[in-house]
């Protein structure tokens, strides 16, 4: 029988060969190849890691999970990262963690208010509703598509206990404005960093300002594990609570296959359980099972090494596209980076100005017919979505800009899989559209 390690090496070598054959690059053909708004960008290393992990057949969190989460923590400069099975799960875990009785008087309780925006991806707001908290919607600015800073203070009430905001399409929210209120009112800041891994505000990475932050590794995002996400925090107690919510609500923090990591497996008192009840089966929260598999983490471990180059590529694609589209500013609202920020753009948002000679539909149809993929700004106004129409909520002032984006805003891609040729083609198709008006 051949040595299993030799066989593994052969399989990995063949996998790399397979990558070249199956996924090797080919030249972009205008009008024939689609210009996606996002997509997986990978090389033979992701495939090799995935196969390597499959040969371990460890399946649940294992060596690759440890490696991936450690690299992410190092990248963000935080003490804790916990991997989950999606960015949406990360948001659910992050907000659930703040409901823990272990936080005493600071824990969120049903009826407490959470300031957010309605121009959002649903899973930024869904956990607020699911946890019986009350979302308080504030309008957004056009251009940055982030919360209007002056209105955050207006949204405060005695029931305000948290602010939960996403950095829209990678563009950081005005962190100074948020943190001023967070500190002053001693409320929580849940930083939805799902679309912004690698963005900075005032020279500091987003995802490191909030008490807890979240990242998505869905294929459209800055790095991917297929499905996947993580929470990140510098608060070690919060990290432990979040992991508990992720892991069925259990108190034990042993990794898979480990026992008695705490050294007190049979010598603690919990609730009304008999003294010394096996810590492995002690539940201090009503939790979920939202863990990532080691196969996913194996992909992530290769992806995270590419993150700096991905961020650079996103910025370069954004800059090239911006330069190409600047001449159409009379008709289009082009994206505006939040002051003090340097976004790792998720995408390139564009709004058709009021009273233009054309509609969003006209422009988007032209682009889609030219095989350029577009997307709306997520939900538009979330309160117009069937599932959210009847939720308990509060609106601060009006949501005029949110409604405007619902009617007039869309985005195109700047992801690292796009080359200068792709970007130039997109600009060309905008030119063609405007010439045809």
């Amino acid at each position, binding site marked *: 029988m051949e040595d299993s390690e030799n066989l593994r090496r052969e399989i990995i070598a063949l996998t790399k060969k397979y990558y070249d054959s199956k996924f090797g690059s080919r030249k972009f053909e205008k009008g024939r190849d689609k210009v996606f708004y996002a997509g997986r960008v990978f090389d033979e290393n992701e495939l090799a890691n995935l196969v390597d992990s499959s040969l*371990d057949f*460890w399946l649940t969190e*294992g*060596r690759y999970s*440890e490696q991936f*989460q*450690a690299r992410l*923590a190092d990248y963000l400069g935080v*003490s*804790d*990262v916990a991997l989950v099975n999606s960015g949406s799960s990360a948001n659910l875990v992050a907000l659930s963690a703040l409901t823990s009785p272990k936080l005493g008087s600071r824990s969120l309780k049903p009826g407490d208010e959470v300031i957010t925006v309605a121009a959002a991806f649903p899973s930024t707001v869904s956990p607020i509703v699911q946890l019986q908290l009350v979302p308080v919607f504030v309008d957004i600015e056009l251009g940055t598509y982030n919360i209007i800073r002056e209105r955050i203070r207006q949204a405060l009430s005695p029931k305000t206990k948290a602010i939960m905001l996403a950095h829209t399409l990678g563009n950081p929210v005005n962190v100074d404005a948020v943190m001023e209120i967070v500190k002053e009112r001693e409320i929580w800041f849940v930083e939805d960093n799902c679309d912004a891994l690698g963005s900075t505000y005032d020279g500091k990475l987003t995802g490191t300002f909030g008490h807890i932050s979240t990242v998505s590794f869905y294929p459209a995002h800055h790095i991917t594990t297929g499905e996947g996400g993580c929470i990140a925090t510098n608060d*070690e107690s919060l*990290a*432990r609570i979040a992991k508990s919510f992720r892991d069925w609500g259990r108190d034990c*923090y042993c*990794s898979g*296959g*480990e026992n*008695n*990591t*705490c*050294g*007190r*497996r*049979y*010598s603690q008192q919990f609730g009304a359980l008999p003294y010394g009840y096996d810590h492995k089966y002690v539940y201090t929260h009503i939790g979920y099972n939202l863990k990532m598999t080691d196969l996913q983490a194996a992909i992530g471990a290769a992806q995270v090494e590419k993150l700096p180059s991905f961020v650079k590529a996103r910025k370069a694609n954004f800059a090239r596209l911006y330069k190409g589209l600047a001449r159409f500013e009379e008709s289009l609202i082009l994206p505006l980076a939040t002051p003090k920020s340097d976004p790792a753009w998720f995408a390139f948002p564009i709004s058709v100005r009021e009273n233009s000679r054309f509609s969003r539909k006209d422009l988007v149809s032209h682009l889609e017919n030219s095989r350029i993929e577009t997307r709306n700004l997520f939900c538009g106004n979330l309160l117009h979505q069937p599932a959210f129409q009847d939720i308990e909520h509060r609106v601060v002032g009006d949501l005029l800009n949110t409604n405007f984006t619902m009617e007039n805003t869309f985005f195109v891609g700047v992801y690292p899989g796009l080359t200068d040729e792709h970007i130039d083609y997109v600009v060309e198709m905008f030119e063609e559209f405007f010439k045809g008006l």
Partner: protein
Amino acid sequence: MAIARKICAEVSSVIKHSNEVCTLILRPLEPLPKFHPGQFLHLSLDPYDPTKQWPESRVFSIASSPLRSGSIRITLAVKGRFTRKMFDEIRYGTSVFLKLPYGDLSFEPNGRDKVLIAGGTGITPFVSFLEYLLDVGVQASVKLFYGVRSRHLIIYDELLDECSRKLELFSKSVFVEDILGDDQEYQRGRLDIETIFARVNGAQSSEFYLSGPPLMMKSFEAYLMAHSVTRERIFADQWE
């Protein structure tokens, strides 16, 4: 608790204090993860293969400052088969595997006055804290009460002396069971919570940290609670 990491380390020094107690200084062969004074690690003598389960290990308090990351120190007392094997077989250059950090015990250098009560090798988590205080300074009073059976079982005495010299708000009282009478340095007898409590000014508002034999910790904790020290201000370094 920060993310636990698994690393290989090499023994760079073995200091035998008695036939059953020794201190190991370990040199990490990979970057040492961040930890807090008071936390502990798992040590395995068997090689760790990341594709397999973590091998048999035991927990040890980290007995060095987190700011001195070039090495990490633990002290072990022989209590069973595993620690006997460690005591007998570990030499200079032996490779071991560590995973760390773990544990909820932590110390805030400032804030309330602190009373540290250590029985025997229970001194180790406090050593990490005290060495850390030497690195960062302290604005709160720290009183250490340390009890051992025999004089030769006093460990880390040089570090404790250094703390006495350099930390203005630090004081130590060392109790030795088998000396004949009090001398300048040590006091005769066992650690006694009643005596300790009487010697602490403002005991009710101080934080008490307990580390040592389980029975000692249990009885001391009960005494403190019966004397109006709330549970929130009693911290015990416990494991099986």
